[in-house]
């Protein structure tokens, strides 16, 4: 007659064995998936690096300058294009003083 504890032990052992087998099976599958994902990521990262390098190549200052000057008709910023508000106030003050005099 099989006693209760022995039955329990056999059940646990069987359960553990089946679980381990299942886990091993799942992990093997996951490892394959992981390997595939790693390869994909590797390839995408490699492509990304090439794209970033190409972007950097396209953003070369000499190329941007050529496009800005020759295609977009932009011009260099001259000191006379930029004014400080304080300087404008000074100019205004000078003009006012001149008028008073």
């Amino acid at each position, binding site marked *: 007659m099989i006693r209760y*504890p022995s039955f*329990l*032990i056999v059940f*646990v*052992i069987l*359960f*553990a064995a089946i*679980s*381990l087998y299942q*886990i091993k099976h*799942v*992990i093997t599958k*996951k490892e394959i998936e*992981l390997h595939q*994902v*790693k390869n994909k*990521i*590797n390839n995408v*990262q*490699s492509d990304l*690096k*090439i794209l*970033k*390098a*190409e972007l*950097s*190549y396209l*953003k*070369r*200052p*000499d190329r941007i*300058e050529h496009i800005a000057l020759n295609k977009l008709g932009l011009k*260099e*910023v*001259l*000191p*006379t294009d*930029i*004014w*400080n508000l304080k*300087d404008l106030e*000074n*100019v205004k003050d000078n003009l006012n003083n001149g008028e008073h005099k």
Partner: protein
Amino acid sequence: MKNFGLFNLYINKNNYAKSRKVKLLTCSLLLVISFTVVGYRTISLASIKKDNTSKIVYKNLQSKAFHKNSRGNIYDRNKKILATTINTLSLNINPQEILNKHETINKLLQIFPQLNEKGLLKKFNTNKKHVNLLREISPREYARLLHLGVEGLKIQKRPKRIYPNNSLASHILGGTDIDGKGIAGIEKKYDAQLKSGKNIDLSIHSGIQHITKKLLLDQINKFEAEGGAGIVMNIKNGEVYSVVSLPDYNANNYNSILSKILFNKATKGIYELGSTLKLITAAIAFESNLINENEVFDVSKPLKVSSRVITDFHPLNYSINIPEVIVHSSNIGSAKIAEKFGPSIQLKYLKLLGLTNKLPLEIPELGRPQVLMDKRILTTMTISYGHGIAITPMHLASATSTIVNNGIKVDPTLIMGKSKIQNKQIISRETSMKMKSIMRLVVSNKYGTAKKAESAGYLIGGKTGTAEKINPNGGYFKKKNIVAFTGAFPINNPKFTITIMIDNPKGQKFSNGYRTAGWVVAPVVKQLVTRIAPILNIKPQLESSSKLSDNLFNYKIRGKKKGENL
């Protein structure tokens, strides 16, 4: 005792059956606990939780899959890629797997016309199992190969170092050998870090680097010069925004470039930079307290010392003070000033300014200054106006920065965020202010030698220098010059130093035959500042602004006619 508790293991000899039961139960319990623990642990280890997995996978990929084989990138200060490594495809073949050699050769020649039939046949007839046909093929060629279905092909991925900006900052970036090992520049200096996948952020600003190069190159071409160097450096922290050496080269072709072009004129080449050194002479004079700033020096006659006669390019027939010595760039005046403070004080300040040693810059290509240290008075005099002392343009930029940075030492750096603000006072704040005032006059005054550097609103200050070029076989070339400018802007509150050097310019019609720094280098400085100031967020200001007058002294400079009063 009827208690069968786990910890009550006292067993009566007469109750043997009960004892067996207890043992069995204990073992069972232990087994159950053990299996439960092992089972739980197994399941927890093997469980595929979404969040955990992505992190683990990402970590593994970061640490192993990519960085292990991928050299780190080099970026500019705005995170623009200056150097990176990409995978390229190489074409290899196993001759033993080829069934029809002639058909395979024909197919290969369709895609790669650069290959020749005889060479391929020779390679195919070897006993080797791996033969390299091409080191690099394009993705398009790879696709065609697959489409044609050539047997025995082996396509391998190879890492390749590339520099997307071609020649931009090529002397600083350096290069790698065929195995990806850094052999020059940043690539060599930071080889270990780059190999381990770490990125390097340079202080270089690609835009400013390009503008410096373009303007310098234009001027070199205009004056048919041999080359030049240009530096833009942040005075506050020593970060170098641009460092140009011309002629330069495409960094992608490093291994096939002549060593002459690889030579870095900005950091390795040492030159006598002439009158730019007078700034240091004047600073020493003020700092030594041996000379009063109103003291005058007679420059009306050439100065004979031993066998040497010191003359001026722009002779004056009266006595002048220190600011006038600098503005008129008088060699005689400078020599007389140096005579007063003597060789020991001069040498002390040259050392303090870092002009006697290699710079602590982060590339291997650094020049060691050559300074005559014989302590003879003639040597002291010639060094005072830049002869008998050969330094790199980067040394000059560093010394200029220190002089205008309220006298606090500035060490140049090519790495962003590396520098620590120093507190090493080399010259006093007052001396620095006097120097800035004089430097401004060199550019703004009608008698100044750098008038052509004046860019309205940006308040440039500096000093020009024209020197005979050293002949490697001894002595000097009489008709070959090194012309230079060193200065800062905005000079009332300096933020950036500019140092430009041009090697052997030729006099042109439009320059009335002149090839002096005032004609050759000063216009470059004007254009450079005008273009980079908006990028650097430096706004133009009026000369009459109170900020300017608060920060600078107003020295009066007399002209060439005798009799004008100070």
